[in-house]
């Protein structure tokens, strides 16, 4: 029931927002934030309650296959955390947008709720087609919001975003369809069974089709063409959701829908690992030169997520907890930075770093939060980012010690661009501003402050996150394969699906 609520409540909230007043943006905002808090509370509850799943409801049958598509959801540790992230970051976005959207707030909040529902759905879905449905459904509200409320070049950015992600996931649809025509069900285990019996060349092809969708969504080099523009043109609260929560769907796809289904050969895995590491370096290097504040953040996001995906492919024993902690860390710090950059953009009337500066001397709270958020993204010990990067370093060390140097280089680069960014925005002489840089509204400060508080809290007690992965099964290809072989006999009966779901 809780899981149904987590997916459906955002959509219902979106509908209810439709009924709210379009002219009283304050009460609209109050309503939206109330819903957001409610859904976030539900997501916390789902973390506390641990793994659970819903009854499978038959949805429809794909033509050409004999497989029923189920509407079924399950939570298994890692995804309940991701649901929390998506709900909470959306809540922060709703709060942060309160002052800047005016009469458009109603439509904006509807879009955010729809996006939130789609993200929650794709995290919780146990059925591949259901996952794909939500995976695609995310694009629509996001692209619409960019196109409607973005910057000067918003139409182009929205088109790029939509086309890139839709085209990127089209091969996945075909691959999925093909596999379903051979399969007895659409869950991970059944798909893996199908993949196991395919010739290796076909399997690799299908695997790449799946991978492409996630590579574009995350995004990794060279599929990042949409990202900088979309993040930059999107209104800042939306950018916070895009980078904080939506990019995690790509990583989640790698973990949950790619690795367990296809036992990709070690050489392919290594190639993806190096591609991700290259992405991490590439993003950091480009961010160093970027003069557009939000593009800089976009590339920094790309760099961090490259590292996360690289950890996924190290196949280390602590991969799941490491990746989860890294994702939580990145979600919190990057969305805080995006929200604050949005405020700075409001001050200066431009996204250019040259036209920002000196806000710390005029607006102490803003300066404090900005420096804090910047430093928190640098994996300083005491923040959750440190725990994540330490674990990541250990994973790389197990994989191949030399890689640690590359990761170290990334960490140094991230200091370089982040400090340059912080210095350009809040330090130096006060630049002429478009709107007077008034004090941060209490709600904004609270929203960002709560993000930062969580960064510290979990930085000191990361166990709260890692412990909730109750039985961290290593999703290495080897293990999933062995698991499959042992369960192959009993898998003919559909009831087994649920049992094996709990393993993840």
């Amino acid at each position: 029931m809780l899981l149904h609520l987590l997916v459906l409540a955002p959509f219902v909230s979106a509908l209810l927002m439709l009924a709210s007043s379009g002219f009283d943006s304050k009460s609209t905002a109050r309503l939206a934030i109330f819903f957001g808090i409610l859904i976030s509370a539900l997501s916390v509850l789902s973390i506390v309650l641990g793994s659970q799943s819903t009854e499978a409801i038959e949805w429809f049958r794909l033509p050409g296959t004999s497989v029923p598509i189920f509407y079924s959801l399950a939570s298994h540790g890692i995804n309940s955390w991701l649901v929390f992230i998506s709900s909470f970051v959306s809540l922060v976005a709703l709060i942060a947008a309160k002052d800047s959207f005016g009469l458009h707030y109603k439509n904006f909040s509807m879009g955010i709720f729809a996006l939130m529902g789609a993200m929650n759905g794709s995290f919780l879905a146990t059925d591949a087609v259901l996952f794909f449905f939500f995976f695609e459904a995310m694009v629509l509200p996001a692209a619409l919001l960019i196109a409607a409320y973005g910057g000067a070049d918003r139409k182009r950015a929205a088109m790029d975003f939509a086309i890139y992600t839709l085209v990127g996931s089209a091969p996945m649809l075909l691959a999925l369809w093909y596999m379903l025509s051979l399969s007895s069900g659409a869950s991970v285990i059944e798909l893996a069974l199908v993949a196991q019996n395919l010739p290796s060349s076909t399997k690799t092809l299908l695997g790449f089709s799946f991978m492409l969708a996630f590579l574009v969504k995350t995004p990794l080099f060279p599929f990042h063409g949409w990202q900088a523009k979309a993040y930059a043109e999107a209104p800042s609260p939306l950018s916070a959701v895009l980078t904080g929560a939506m990019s995690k769907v790509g990583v989640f796809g790698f973990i949950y829908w790619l690795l367990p289904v296809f036992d990709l050969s070690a050489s392919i895995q290594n190639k993806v690992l190096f591609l991700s590491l290259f992405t991490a370096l590439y993003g950091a290097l480009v961010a160093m030169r970027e003069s557009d504040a939000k593009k800089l953040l976009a590339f920094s996001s790309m760099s961090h997520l490259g590292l996360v995906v690289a950890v996924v492919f190290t196949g280390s024993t602590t991969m799941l907890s490491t990746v989860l902690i890294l994702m939580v860390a990145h979600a919190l710090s990057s969305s805080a930075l995006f929200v604050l950059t949005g405020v700075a953009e409001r001050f200066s009337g431009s996204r250019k770093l040259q036209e920002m500066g000196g806000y710390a001397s005029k607006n102490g709270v803003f300066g404090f939060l900005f420096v804090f958020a910047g430093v928190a993204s640098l994996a300083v010990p005491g923040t959750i980012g440190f725990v994540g990067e330490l674990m990541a370093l250990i994973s790389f060390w197990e994989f191949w010690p030399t890689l640690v140097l590359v990761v170290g280089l990334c960490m140094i680069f991230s200091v370089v661009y982040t400090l340059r960014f912080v210095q350009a925005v809040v330090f130096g002489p006060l630049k002429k501003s478009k709107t007077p840089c008034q004090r941060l509204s209490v709600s904004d400060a609270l929203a960002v402050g709560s993000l930062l508080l969580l960064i510290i809290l979990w930085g000191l007690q990361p166990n709260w996150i890692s412990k909730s992965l109750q039985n961290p099964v290593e999703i290495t290809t080897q293990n999933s394969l062995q698991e499959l072989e042992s369960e192959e006999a009993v898998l003919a009966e559909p009831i087994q699906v649920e049992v094996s779901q709990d393993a993840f």
Partner: protein
Amino acid sequence: MIPLWLIPLFPLLGAIILGIISLASSDSQKGAPEFLLGFIGLLFPLLSFMAVLSLSFGGANTPIQETLGTWIDISFLQIQFGFLFDSLSKMMLLFVTGIGSLITWYSIGYMKHDRGFARFFAYMNFFLFSMIILVLADSLPLTFLGWEGVGLCSYLLIGFWHKDSQNAIAGNKAFIVNRVGDIGFLIAMLVLLSVGGSAFLSYEGLNAGLAGLSQAELVKIIPALALAAFFFFFGCTGKSAQIPLLTWLPDAMAGPTPVSALIHAATMVTSGVYLLARLSNLFVLVPSVLSIVLWIGLLTAFWAAVAGLFQNDIKKVLAYSTISQLGFMFMAAGVAAFDVAIFHVFTHAFFKAALFLGAGAVIHSLSGEQDMRKMGGLIQKMPITAIVMLFGFFAIIGFPGFAGFWSKDLILEKLFEFGAMGPYLYAFALLTAVLTAVYMGRLIIMTFFGSYRGSLEKSESIHDPSFSMLVPMLILTIGSAFAGYLWATLIPGANWFEQTLAPVLSSAQNHIHVQSVIHLSPLVFALVGTVAAFFGLFLAWFIFNRPVPLSKDSSDPKGFGASWTFLWDTIHQWTSVFLVKMASWFMSVVVNHFVLFVQWLLVGIVEILSDGARAIQVRKVRLQMGLSFVGILFVILIVYVYGGAV
């Protein structure tokens, strides 16, 4: 018994309270009353100093270990929040909290009427918190927490006056260079983790683990240990401004002077030495790394001493002298005389803090002038400050009886006794000691002697600082005169310092036993050291006691001085900064544009194709309708012909 966690808790509370006050008053014009803020800012460091005092002298002399709870517990990685109060951390804590409190006291006067008063004391308190964590931690990751925490505070305080972008950029540089070293620290922890698991990350576990290994087992892991030790030392070069990561410290002088005194002279920069002493049991197993430490220390000390000669900025001279003195400490650590290194850390904290506070008083009364060419003759106008700085000066050059004399002498002695190479090392270090006397003499002469060369209208207002600033200065002066008697080699029985540290460090120091080639009495070393100090002093007097040409240009050194001073900056520029910039340019200009070009190309092809397809489209509604009708007929025809079984 006072629980250990109270010691860091006090400054943390102070930081939080002051931080909240600072944020809450950030919109008001005037801010909270400075008296109250100063009181809070001083109270918490003092409280933690009291706690350290009562723990050090009140309780039993056994190490106290305290575990607060779990930090990280993820499969094999288990890290606790734990504190260890043994004689080494006791020694460090005593002067960190003590000198920290003194300098905080001094800052109340120094920072008066600054709009960021509350913010400054919040940072100072947070710095003390981090430094205490660094020293008190019982495991490497927790030390690393403090290690990065002090780096962060250093960044914030260097850029304290952030309206000037230059200050903020200097802060960035400090953070970035430190971060490079910190990666070394992280990697070293990884190596230890892979050698001995989580146990090796706590100091007790590491010592016990290393001691428990048999000779054969030890030989097997020596390469890994050497790697770990090397990377730890690399981390230390960042934090303690040694070759090659020393460029940030002179730039760090952009911060307020009390900050330079506390963070960039007395405490934070010595944490590298502390770490070496803490890990002494690891380092003595790998003599090759220790010899790297020794040589880096020697070279750094010499290089910085020469660079000190070229500086015109009074704080820059002190900065280079700090680097040079840190080099001396690393020399001592390099010959496995860790207790001597810590002793020099201890005495250096007093006299360098006194020098910096004196310099701060000079700068303060000259309304911010830092160029020594525009000073001179100040001994008549600010006699007390002059006395403070002279005491510090005598201590640093090793004038007989002063603090630096005893500690530097011990270092030189240990160097001499270090095997066959010892006498050469000794000679090199002695040369550096002479240079120290020369550049410090230059500073004193240019600042306090001769005639005043600054702008005249300031001349009347030059005076000694207020009482609240003077008291801490005088206490430090007493320290720089007498701190050395805690371990005076010439006086029998005056070796309290050595005895205190022995439980922690002796096992490591006895491990390496290099027979000295020539035996000399301590008196000889004292004599030679004294001669060196006097020689340097006279040299300085002869060279620099002459009128200084007036100049209006910047205080940066020029010509050869510049190329020597900025040697490491230049090396960094060409070996790393330039490469990174090139890579960054290549990625963002070439690769990124290439990716965008490919994207554009694909879109272009699709658009061309769609244009082609559009040409087929007819624009007559009726014709379209007719064609669709024909199409339907066509479909029907096919179904008819093939019987629907396509």
